[in-house]
């Protein structure tokens, strides 16, 4: 059945949709301020007139392209094209600055491909048992999981853990306005009608990562990027390279797939956790954040693995594993397909088409990225005075197009300024945005848990899975604080020695 579905994709129309989907995904993913979420949301109405299978082929291809395309600007400009590539900026950009942009992009592309392929095997073979396991998660486990993710994000950061936590808490707080997720009543909208729905994710993302980066670029307008030739040959990894890093590839892919399966936790969390694990497992953890190959591998392998991981609960349970799969869920409903466990029996052709698309789109993404990265990377040579106004225009139009309202543009602008100030105050942006994304899930699950337990927090510690997540969070927090205190002590003694 799967082989038949793969062969079906080689006919004219499905192949055209895959090619156009992956291509548009890569371009949109690479353009800062535009995301796969926006592309897929904007394409959704256009698929009304298409066959449901073709519509999903196009949307899944866009998803694969968009998650992968983000690494180009993340590496060359330190502007993550998509939230999934935020972590890639940690090492991709420093490595490019060190004069190895081709190598950095090559590692990113290969990692994306390998991550996608490994996760695809899980998508095909392990969907039923893994979906059954994810079903065991109650609200207690989900809240503990979000808590663990937030602590991990704060721990991943280079600077002060207090500032990282502050950034994460701010993200959580800024997601509070709008409709209460349990009661459905209005909350913290300060009498502004447009605030009824709260702050939309896309303007917040564009503002934080687009506008603040534009301001930073303007400040350093005289700083010239070194013209480092990005050669085609440089982008290929040798088999020895792949062999040497095989454990990192496999581990990151497994983390990415696992995180993808977990409901509503997307590629960004997958790459953060994989990065954190790789950093702690590395013999040279100090290299992380300053151009480490392992850092790029962990981030890119995991974020592409989350794509197929996120599709698993989508097709098996009807639960989105990420924001984009939530939109894909909308596509199912628009095309009169009932998502859920019955999808396997009622729409087998569609399920296998999605699986086959995930495979073929990944292979096409790999070839297309290798072929077009050099062209896309030319944006680094374009004068900033040409590029930055265009990025600003895209930021404005991208925010506006989401809901067709100017309020979102103001939100984007406001969050852009906030992002700039946060960075200047040494507050990392990643915890903010992750906190913002996870806020609703955290609150919903916490309150539902407390409602079911009659206000007792004991079940969080008595349920094995929930306890594991909490223990991991606590150990991570204590370990990071201990490490930071140790580093500070070391710095202090060096400073005292210098003084003597």
């Amino acid at each position, binding site marked *: 059945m799967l082989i038949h579905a793969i062969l079906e994709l080689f006919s004219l129309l499905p192949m055209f949709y895959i090619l156009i989907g992956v291509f548009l995904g890569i371009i949109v993913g690479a353009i800062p301020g535009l995301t796969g979420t926006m592309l897929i949301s904007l394409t959704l109405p256009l698929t009304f007139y298409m066959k449901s299978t073709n519509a999903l082929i196009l949307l899944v291809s866009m998803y694969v392209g968009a998650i992968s395309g983000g690494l180009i600007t993340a590496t060359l400009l330190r502007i993550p094209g998509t939230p999934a590539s935020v972590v890639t900026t940690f090492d991709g950009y420093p490595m490019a600055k060190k004069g190895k942009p081709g190598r950095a992009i090559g590692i990113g592309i290969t990692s994306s491909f390998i991550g996608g392929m490994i996760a695809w095997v899980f998508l095909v073979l392990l969907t039923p048992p893994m979906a059954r396991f994810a079903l065991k998660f109650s609200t207690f486990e989900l809240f503990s999981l979000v808590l663990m993710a937030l602590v991990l994000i704060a721990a991943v950061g280079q600077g002060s853990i207090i500032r990282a936590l502050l950034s994460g808490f701010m993200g959580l707080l800024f997601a*509070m306005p709008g409709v209460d997720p349990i009661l459905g009543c209005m909350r913290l909208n300060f009498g502004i009608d447009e605030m009824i729905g709260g702050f939309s994710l896309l303007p917040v993302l564009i503002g934080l990562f687009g506008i603040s980066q534009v301001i930073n670029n303007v400040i*350093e307008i*005289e700083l010239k990027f070194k013209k480092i030739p990005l050669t085609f040959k440089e982008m290929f990894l040798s088999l020895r390279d792949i062999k040497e890093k095989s454990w990192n590839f496999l581990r990151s892919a497994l983390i990415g797939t696992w995180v993808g399966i977990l409901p509503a936790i997307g590629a960004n969390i997958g790459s953060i956790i994989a990065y954190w694990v790789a950093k702690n497992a590395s013999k040279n953890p100090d290299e992380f954040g300053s151009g480490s190959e392992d850092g790029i591998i962990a981030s890119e392998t995991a974020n592409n693995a989350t794509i197929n991981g996120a599709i698993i609960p989508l097709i098996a349970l009807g639960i989105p594993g990420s924001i984009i799969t939530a939109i894909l869920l909308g596509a199912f409903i628009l095309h009169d397909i009932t998502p859920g466990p019955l999808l396997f029996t009622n729409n087998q052709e569609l399920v296998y088409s999605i699986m086959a698309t995930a495979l073929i789109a990944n292979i096409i993404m790999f070839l297309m990225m290798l072929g077009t990265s050099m062209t896309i990377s030319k944006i680094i040579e374009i004068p*900033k*005075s040409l590029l930055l106004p265009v990025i600003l225009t895209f930021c404005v139009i991208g925010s506006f197009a989401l809901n067709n309202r100017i309020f979102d543009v103001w939100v984007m*602008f406001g969050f852009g300024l906030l992002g700039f100030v946060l960075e200047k105050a040494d507050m990392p942006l990643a915890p903010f945005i992750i906190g913002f994304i996870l806020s609703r899930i955290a609150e919903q699950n916490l309150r539902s848990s407390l409602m079911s337990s009659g206000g007792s927090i004991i079940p969080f510690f008595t349920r094995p899975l929930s306890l594991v997540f909490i223990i991991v969070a606590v150990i991570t927090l204590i370990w990071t604080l201990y490490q930071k205190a140790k580093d500070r002590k070391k710095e202090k003694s060096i400073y005292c020695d210098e003084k003597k």
Partner: protein
Amino acid sequence: MIQNEKKSTYQMDIIFSVILFIVCLFIFKESTLLPKSTYEIVGTSFLPKVLSIFLCICAVIVFIEGLKKRSAQLRIDRAKESKESSSLKPKGDFVKRPKLAFLVVLITFTYISIMSLRIIRYYMLTPLFILILGFLMFRREKKGKWINFLIVLFINAFALGIGVYYIFTKIFIIDLF
């Protein structure tokens, strides 16, 4: 080094923490006004309140860090008393081109304001916006020749302005005015 280039300045820490503290107090106060649930134990105001308190604590810590940085900076300044560094100016690289950055923010603000007021049509406003920003930035960037830059900038501004307008209004059916 107590304060290197990457670290935030003490002024930034102090101002940021004070503003954050005030904002969080305001949100906490607003949260207390939210209706209480009859069947839920924690209610709709629980998380905003908890987060406001956490943030207030974090703001106090950042404020104390800022004060510590300030006294450390003062000690360094006193040590170098004969030099011009005795002033309280921060040594970080907060803004290298503050005027240009401010202008870009101001022009973007004006662009969005005009867009929201619908005074000028999008396909005219956007090229104008790109042209003004392009001119301003090129003066500072000084990369390449003026004439080449001008040609590319004009083409870029009009192609993008009209292209985006066409795609969004005709294909995505979005009202851009």
